[in-house]
């Protein structure tokens, strides 16, 4: 059994370093996870690794008791039945609307064509944001680098997550609206939350201490 008595879903990518540091603080041995980036399941440490957007899926189904993922992922999958227990504070990013620097294609589109065209990986967050701000939107779902979409003229702007704004700037894009700040969150399976209450509370308490 792992140090926490729980199976933990750990996100690969930008949140992984901060997450493993936190787990070190809980007494979980993350050395093997750090040294082997092809392996996915680390039974001894009680860790499973996956892309951040899969974390709520594994946790909802109980394949992992708890997990760590970005708020952006949770906002994009509101139907997932998981507990959101803690804002861990790291991995801070901004969900933004961006457009080509200095060009008002969005305003122009809205005025003349009655809608804006937006490319995004986050179709629910984008749809909600434009609905809330009273603008009709035509969403174009893309999977890869969203920055390309407005440069080719396919869309008027994008909704995307940015940490430093560097990639946007390098592609000649500028932020025009900030939608929501996203940080890493601790989530839990609803059944594990009841059946492994003591183990989960111990983790929450230790992390509260470590992040505040």
């Amino acid at each position: 059994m792992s140090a926490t008595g729980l199976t933990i879903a750990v996100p690969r990518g930008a949140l992984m370093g901060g997450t493993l540091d936190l787990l070190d603080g809980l007494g979980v041995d993350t050395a093997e996870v750090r040294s082997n980036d092809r392996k996915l399941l680390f039974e001894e440490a009680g860790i499973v690794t996956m892309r951040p957007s899969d974390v709520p899926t594994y946790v909802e189904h109980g394949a992992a008791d708890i997990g760590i993922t970005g708020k952006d992922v949770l906002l994009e999958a509101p139907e997932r039945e998981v507990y959101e227990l803690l804002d861990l504070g790291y991995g801070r990013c901004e969900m933004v609307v961006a457009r080509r620097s200095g060009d008002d294609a969005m305003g122009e589109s809205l005025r003349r064509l009655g809608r804006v065209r937006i490319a995004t990986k986050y179709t629910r967050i984008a749809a909600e944001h434009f609905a809330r701000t009273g603008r009709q939107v035509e969403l174009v779902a893309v999977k890869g680098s969203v920055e390309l979409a407005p440069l080719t003229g396919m869309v008027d702007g994008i909704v995307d997550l940015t940490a430093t704004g560097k990639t946007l700037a390098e592609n000649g894009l500028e932020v025009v609206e900030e939608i929501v700040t996203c940080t890493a969150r601790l989530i839990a399976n609803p059944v594990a939350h009841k059946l492994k209450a003591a183990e989960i509370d111990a983790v929450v308490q230790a992390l509260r201490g470590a992040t505040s």
Partner: protein
Amino acid sequence: MIHPIPAGTRDVLPDEMRELRAIDERLRSSFADAGYGEVWTPMVEYEEVLSVGDDSAAYRMFDDQGKVLALRSDMTVPIARVVATRFPESERELRLCYSAHAYRTVGHRTGQQREFLQSGIELIGVPGPAGEAEVVTLALSALANAGLARHRIGVGDGALYRRLLEALEVPEDSYRELLGCLTRRDMVGLELRVDALGLARDARDLLVELPDLRGGPEVLERADGPAGEALARLRELYAALEARGVADRVILDLGLVRDLGYYTGAVFELYDPAVGFALGGGGRYDDLIGRFGAPRPACGIAFDVQRVHVAQAAEEGQR
């Protein structure tokens, strides 16, 4: 060739059906032995009748008169109708059980079923903890009879948090958001919104920490203070469950809420470590039969038979 069936439905073939039937029989025999009589109600009803209890029908259709029909989303609402219309004058206690399909809207991706087999009980005319304790005890023994060994039941009070908000004199216009966070299990959002209320330290801590309290009888002690009065009913229920010798399977859960609108007090949820989703749930619904015209206190619980099957199969694998 592909001949699709609607999303969230599926065919059951003989190997699975045999096992499903066996579980269903065991649940029903437990109910029958405890004096619960089985009922059937129509699979389709008038939408306006069903929506007296719950308006979340997954399927609606028209009949030849142009009337809107709907498939029931659970059996509790049709049974409330039956009790109010077929036993309107009855003063005696009614014990009813069922095993039937119900239909719910669910997210497509979660792999949950829109059509699912529900087996459950309704106890009418027994108010308060006495009725709830009978239902909880029977649910636990029925699951044991179906082959489960590690199942537990979460017991809470769906009105607890609201009563706590009232006791702390929180402005009423913030109830909806706070209770919404609780229903969505968004504890981070709950804490943010409670902080924004600008309450005294003690009240703030209580509102943030109380929904996290779950476990044995010690949670009732830890939640004393303004919540104490609101907890009295739960305390009484726990004592009744102790007297029936099932307290070791009970998880008192002060954050438990069920999203169906008709619960008025105690709420239940069933768990097994082999299944990531609740096996079923229920609670007290003292207003519902009255909405159909003949007020009676009532409570009940239902199992998703297919999930019980998953748990039972896992239990067999353990041996």
